[in-house]
């Protein structure tokens, strides 16, 4: 399957992080993402979306569930698992 962004990943589809465009994120935000375990090669899955404007979104990263805003999810490139 083709590469897409975590923001565009459909709910319930498992994927692997391909690359993170750290330039799109400010340092505090980048640090937080790292703290929560976002990194190349980590498995992710989009689980839930917020009620207003489908924002924020709940994402499984490794074995942890994290809430992030769409604007940040946009910087994360993922490859859906076949």
């Amino acid at each position, binding site marked *: 399957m083709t590469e897409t962004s975590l923001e565009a990943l459909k709910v319930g589809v498992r994927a692997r992080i391909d690359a993170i465009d750290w330039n799109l994120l400010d340092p505090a935000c980048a640090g937080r993402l790292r703290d929560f375990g976002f990194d190349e090669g*980590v498995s992710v899955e989009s689980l839930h979306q917020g009620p207003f404007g489908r924002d924020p979104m709940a994402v499984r990263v490794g074995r942890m569930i994290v809430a992030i805003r769409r604007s940040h999810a946009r910087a994360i490139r993922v490859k859906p698992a076949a």
Partner: protein
Amino acid sequence: MIQTVSVAVVGNPNAGKSALFNALTGARQKVGNYPGVTVERHVGRATLPSGRPIELIDLPGTYSLAASSPDEAVTRDVLLGRQEGERLPEAIVIVVDASNLDNHLRFALQLIALGRPTVVALNMIDLAKRDGLELDPKRLEAELGVPVIETIAVRKRGLAPLLEALEGQLDCQRAVPGDALPPSEPIDLHRRAREVATAAVLRETPVRRITHRLDSVLLHPVAGPILLAAIMFVMFQAVFAWSAVPADALEAAVVAAGNWVGGVLPGGPLRSLVVDGIFAGVGAVIVFLPQIIILFLFILVLESSGYMVRAAFIMDRLMSSAGLSGRSFIPLLSSFACAVPGIMATRTIDNEKDRLTTILVAPLMTCSARLPVYALIIAAFIPARDALPGIGLQGLVLFILYISGIVSALIAALVIRRTKVRGSGGLFMMELPKYQMPRLKDVTIGLWQRALIFLKRAGTIILGTTIVLWALASYPQAGPGEKQSEVSIAGKIGSAIEVVVKPIGFNHDISLALLPTMAAREVAVSAIGTVYALDAGKSDQLQTLGERLAGRWSLATALAFLAWFVFAPQCISTIAITRRETNSWRWPGFMVGYLFALAYLAAGITYWTAVAFGLG
């Protein structure tokens, strides 16, 4: 004498760190504050297998030693021996969630690199098994180079082996290197953590977890917000409905005790102080204990179940349109209990501007100290009938008062973000922990602590101000044909304030109560109670305060008084905590100014409207 060894309990948020700390120390713990910051410091004692006592410090949960919020900074500073007034912990107990190893191990690796005697508690091993995860603790131990002990803190499993391993680690002497941060690239640390985690996992079968099933309902785009609104509505209805019986019993007991003491004491100033001051004043506040306990029951259960974070998730988008983030939701919801812990909870907001704005609007959330005032006025002036079938009018009015506070807070936040605190919004990124059944013991301890704090306030601040007010309101004594509440010193002060507040419908009694109310909002109730008890004077029977009020205030005045209390910053503690958290007088000054202005306007508009409708 050998100094007690101090041991830090550290780990990621949601690793079950505090549960482990509670299990190890039991009741032998003290809650204090770190100097200079409002981060709670929990210290407790435990005993090693040899009988040697140790002191355990429960540090705030954090994801790494690179702190991004004030409470995370405390954890870092204590561990590196930089925290003022705290000695460098000689040993470390690292708590990791067994089902979240790759994440929690990263911080664990950082901590192990400090080179202090260290033990890892592989906690919540039962939940990991439930999630279909099979681990190899021995392999983990080999990879990490420190003892790894399986624990289930909430069931007190694995505590003895943990203490034994800790003692073993303490016995083999190691040099404590002090405050050098281990050189480590975050990305390398991350990869190493994942390697170790992968090595330690024997088998992993994906199981549809209970958390996922609950979330698909509670975070559902339509059902989620409806359920959240329903939970909040039930909470406010329950505050009234469930408290009626215990509150009535408590009130009857206070009146009976007051009458009995009044009958025993000889007439004179002492009897007046006890009956009119203490029983009428403090008693009037104590009867609200059941309502405060019910409110905290809801907040504690929502918090410990993991739902509160979901509420933040649902509210994030709305909050961000007011210039805040979902992160602000938890401090603001806590402010319904009290703005002081609410403002303290803002320290988890990493964005400074979001944090400041949240602090400034937190007092608009109706705190539990306002509840006695609302409850008294509503009970006295709003008839106890159904507005709609099944929905009490009194509960509805209370709900409206709470909603007014919330709406004003959002508007105020928006205005503040556009004027005083401009700049880009912060990020919203938080962990959604697994749902957990709230444990009866933890909730009970929490409620007990809140009840004690409330009673302590009643016994100190409220009692103190009530006695001062009683003295000011009792002297000089009124002559024949004069009213005590007008002749006394307090009466004179009240008359001076009355000049300012008369246009918004406040009478002399209210003016008199406004000043002592600065000490604590509940004092409004005790102050009015004392004044009326003194005026009643001759009749020895204690009437309930509500009955006295209904005869003396117009409905317009009562409504204006309620509107005033939605906004008025009448609480020294809130102002003091704002000063401490913002580190300047500028922001508390601004807060007090805008809130008083709003209070005056709101009370005025309410009064004038009510009078126009013929309710004056």
